[in-house]
């Protein structure tokens, strides 16, 4: 793992502990910098992938990153790259534009994603044709700046990305906060939607690096009536809404800060690691804001080193 430069002031003992923990976490020989030679057995036939180039009989890296080998393909995976979408990835995105029959969303990809009205499931399980009335009512569903959870559908022939939100677990997210981490920290797993029952919190790890932490929202009943759906999205309900309960808010913020710490340290973000971090902060009675301090960062680094060597 490539070591990151932390923007924290560490005193002498903290520096020593931190460096020691980081040393244990470094995977030797895997990371390369530009123009470094990639160790490869020239006798085996291998394919030169992204980030490599053959110069003078040697295979050199053209980008900084980690060397990955898949069968015969040797390539260099950069770390701070933008999100690279794969089909069926779960992403959390923000609506930028409401266009005719589709929404344009921002996903931390080189292009904007497109969420078509026909890829949305507003009402019951029966797919009905989208009429012009639905098109006019698009603003009742999502407006600009809304946070939306969707799944990557397909790549169009012109290279644009189509999203779909057909299941009821997708859709608008509110009552929480959106966090941004580097996309490579969220690995593909079976489940990206986590409902933490003990705290009553929804945690959605978008593969594009956008993570949503918020109050738990019951998944809507698929048999509910059309009109109820549409009206529930209007803004009149906002005015009468109560605030998030204090306990839930504290848990949301703790999880949020745990994710920020893990992202600063460059550790993969999974539910287990997040909950471990949160529990550690609870047992050590660390104040929510102090979680972003240098002492906690060093603690988490040591914890991770212990966890990996165990």
């Amino acid at each position, binding site marked *: 793992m490539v070591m990151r430069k932390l923007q924290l002031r560490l005193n002498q003992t903290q520096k020593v502990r931190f460096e020691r923990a980081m040393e244990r976490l470094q995977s030797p020989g895997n990371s390369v910098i530009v123009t470094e030679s990639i160790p490869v057995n020239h006798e085996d036939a291998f394919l030169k992938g992204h980030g490599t180039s053959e110069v003078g009989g040697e295979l050199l890296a053209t980008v900084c990153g980690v060397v990955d080998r898949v069968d015969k393909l040797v390539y260099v995976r950069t770390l701070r790259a933008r999100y690279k979408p794969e089909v069926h990835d779960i992403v959390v995105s*923000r609506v930028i534009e409401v266009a005719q029959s589709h929404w344009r969303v921002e996903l931390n990809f080189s292009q904007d994603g497109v969420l078509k009205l026909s890829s949305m499931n507003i009402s019951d399980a029966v797919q009905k044709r989208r009429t012009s009335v639905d098109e006019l009512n698009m603003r009742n569903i999502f407006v600009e700046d809304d946070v939306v959870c969707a799944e990557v559908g397909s790549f169009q022939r012109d290279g644009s990305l189509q999203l779909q939100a057909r299941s009821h677990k997708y859709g608008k*997210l*509110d009552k929480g906060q*959106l966090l941004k981490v580097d996309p490579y920290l969220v690995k593909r797993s079976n489940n990206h939607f986590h409902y933490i029952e003990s705290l009553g919190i929804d945690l959605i790890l978008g593969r594009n690096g956008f993570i949503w932490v918020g109050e738990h929202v019951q998944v809507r009943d698929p048999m509910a009536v059309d009109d109820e759906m549409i009206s529930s999205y209007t803004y009149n309900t*906002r005015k009468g809404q109560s*605030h998030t309960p204090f306990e839930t808010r504290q848990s949301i913020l703790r999880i*949020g800060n745990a994710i920020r710490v893990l992202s600063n340290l460059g550790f993969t973000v999974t539910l287990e690691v997040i909950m471990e971090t949160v529990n550690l902060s609870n047992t050590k009675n660390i104040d*929510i804001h102090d979680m*972003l301090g240098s002492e906690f960062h060093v603690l988490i680094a040591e914890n991770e080193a212990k966890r990996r060597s165990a």
Partner: protein
Amino acid sequence: MVGLSVGEQHFLKGGIAQDLRADGRKRLTYRPIYVETGVIPQANGSARVKIGGTDVIASVKAEIGRPSSLQPDKGKVAVFIDCSPTAEPTFGGRGGEELSSELALALQKCLLGGKSGAGAGIDLSSLLIKEGRVCWDLYIDGLVISSDGNLLDALSAAIKAALTNTAIPKVQVSAEMADDEQPEIDISDEEYQQFDTSSVPVIITLTKVGAHYIVDATAEEESQMSSAVSISVNRVGHICGLTKRGGSGLDPSVILDMISVAKHLSESLMNKLDSEISAAEACEDEDLLKCKRAGTLLTRLISFLYSIVSGSLFKVKKHNKLHEDCDILGGEMRIEVMRSAKI
């Protein structure tokens, strides 16, 4: 500026109402403040301040000038702020000009006081060399590298740190000349005088969101503000300046309450800043000592090149003395490097 959805805005406002902000802070808690001094060796004084995601650099350049005829017993100070496009894409071209001039004006008012010079944080008469003839002109430049709210507080902290770091060369005025001639001055290369910054105020910005106000707002919180009041307080607890931004009006009792809160916070902020600044200066001295021990011109060259790179972030402006200095590289390089090492 990224927009927030209605749900997120509601969550943010709810947090402020419940005294638990998005990163776990209370309403009146600052983010951690980091200070680095001496980041631009060619300048007489410089500092870089990071408050959370907000990153600013301030530099002080001193030049020999003539005092104005209205105030012949005082030196001159000018403050200029530049918002770099690296902070926000909207700052590119002329986009950041309005914000820059607003910030510069607010800082100027709180550092320099009124037209007559009364209430100034910097003692302008200490900049005088010869009454009516020669004085020091201080050019204070601020650069915003990264903007995550609370720019004014960060800039005032950076200017305070830069002034503490400032070393003005000692000047000797040679033999008396006739009244209309410029006297000869001898600028010392060896001896410097430190600037006295005990009366420089700090600015505390209180942002009103909903029915409560918070200190040190992030960019997201600032997007939800109804109004913001920036109060500059000095060590003694006197108010040196006050600026109100934002569309909605405020009841006078609210403003008075904000002022008392700011006064109360200013003590802890001043102490925190002072300790950070002295820690930063100690760090800088340690680094310079290491340089000397290494003994090679190379290490000094590298630190100089770093300063050039950071200097090249400044746009070319009429009053931007740093960029001019970068241009005069050539033959003066070696001398500048020696001088900056402050042997």
